[in-house]
């Protein structure tokens, strides 16, 4: 019970996100209207994805320093859940773009950056699928994981800032905190982020435990 406090916290925060996020007051704006509530579900996906991928890279580095299937399993399962988060982020973003911008895919720098991120991790899974030797697979995919994650940083955080974008919060478009004069949205947004991130790590930890048990029984 003591070690599972963060799981309980995650459930409570997400309950609050769903109830508060769908029912509480949001600023009335033209065009965006009620779709502004996507903020509680779309943006936390990216925070979750980035933190899961960062954790995955962290375990990849640990694998290179200290090779063991343990670190490899951590790294891969974290990347898996991060990928799922990224897919959800892109899908929620597309639904929103359909209503706010008028088309599912708008070729916006942020959309493209997100798509490229997913491509990188697809390549990571392709690489893993095409190496048979287990040690080699773990080592090479760990190297690619580190390389790709660090090479992605300019793509996600520097280049989009240099281009015009329709996305809220960039290219002269105000982010949500400009509209959110009375901070009413922040009271849901921050808990939502924490809740979604914790949920991601929870799912990953379940997958990791499952894989570790599988590993144990395949050996004996």
């Amino acid at each position: 019970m003591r070690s599972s406090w963060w799981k309980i916290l995650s459930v409570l925060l997400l309950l609050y996100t769903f109830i508060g996020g769908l029912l509480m007051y949001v600023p009335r704006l033209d065009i965006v209207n009620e779709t502004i509530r996507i903020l509680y579900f779309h943006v936390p996906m990216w925070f979750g994805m980035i933190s899961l991928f960062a954790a995955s890279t962290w375990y990849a580095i640990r694998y290179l320093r200290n090779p063991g299937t343990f670190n490899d399993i951590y790294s891969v399962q974290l990347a898996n859940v991060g990928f799922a988060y990224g897919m959800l982020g892109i899908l929620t973003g597309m639904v929103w773009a359909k209503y706010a911008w008028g088309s599912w895919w708008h070729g916006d720098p942020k959309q493209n950056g997100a798509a490229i991120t997913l491509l990188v991790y697809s390549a990571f899974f392709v690489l893993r699928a095409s190496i048979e030797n287990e040690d080699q697979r773990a080592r090479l995919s760990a190297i690619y994981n580190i390389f790709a994650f660090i090479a992605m940083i300019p793509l996600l955080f520097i280049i989009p800032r240099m281009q015009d974008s329709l996305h809220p919060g960039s290219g002269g478009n105000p982010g949500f905190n400009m509209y959110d004069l009375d901070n009413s949205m922040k009271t849901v947004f921050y808990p939502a982020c924490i809740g979604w991130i914790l949920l991601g790590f929870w799912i990953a930890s379940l997958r990791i435990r499952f894989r570790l048990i599988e590993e144990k029984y395949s050996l004996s």
Partner: protein
Amino acid sequence: MITLLKKEFILELRRQSVIAGLTVYLLSTTFVCYITFTLKGSTLSPVVWSSLFWITVLFTSIHSIAKSFIGEKRGTDIYLYSLLDPHLIILSKIIYNFLLCVLLSIACMGLFMLFFGNPVEDVWLFVFVIVLAALGFSASLTMLSGIAARANNSGIVMPVLSFPIIISVLLLVIKITKNCIDGLDRSVSQQDLITLVAINCLVAALSYILFPYIWRS
């Protein structure tokens, strides 16, 4: 290290078929572009020119760099492994691939100017961008070809691994090329150039640090 570089060059000269193959590859790609895009006497707009140019350069670079580890014979890497520091190997490969890329890109530029005319106003800046792009391509692709060489179907894995990584370099390069074509003042592209150099340094440093781990397997 210099001996290693020399070895690369001698090997390359000996395998003339590869160089010839790459040249013909470049020629036929450009020619296919020429045939398909100038049907019925239409001409290319500058934007299409630059994107076609960079796509051609990208594919040629991937093909030429992919063979730097994939083409190596089985015994060679074990031999080198027992003799040398892996840092030296990756450095010499990167330098060699860099020179090869510059050569191929410049050739590609010549061909494009021959077939499609020359829309570029600021040629020297454009050449400089080509050199920087070649550096970025060689720094990241050499490393990736080392990974791909150990996978099963390395021919497919190589492009899959490299495209997403190379996109950040490509985006910047296309942006600067547009400035070159429009003949804008050089101070306009300055910030992009600095970012490009920074990305190159980042990628090169990563290759340098991570390569010994590939080599061990």
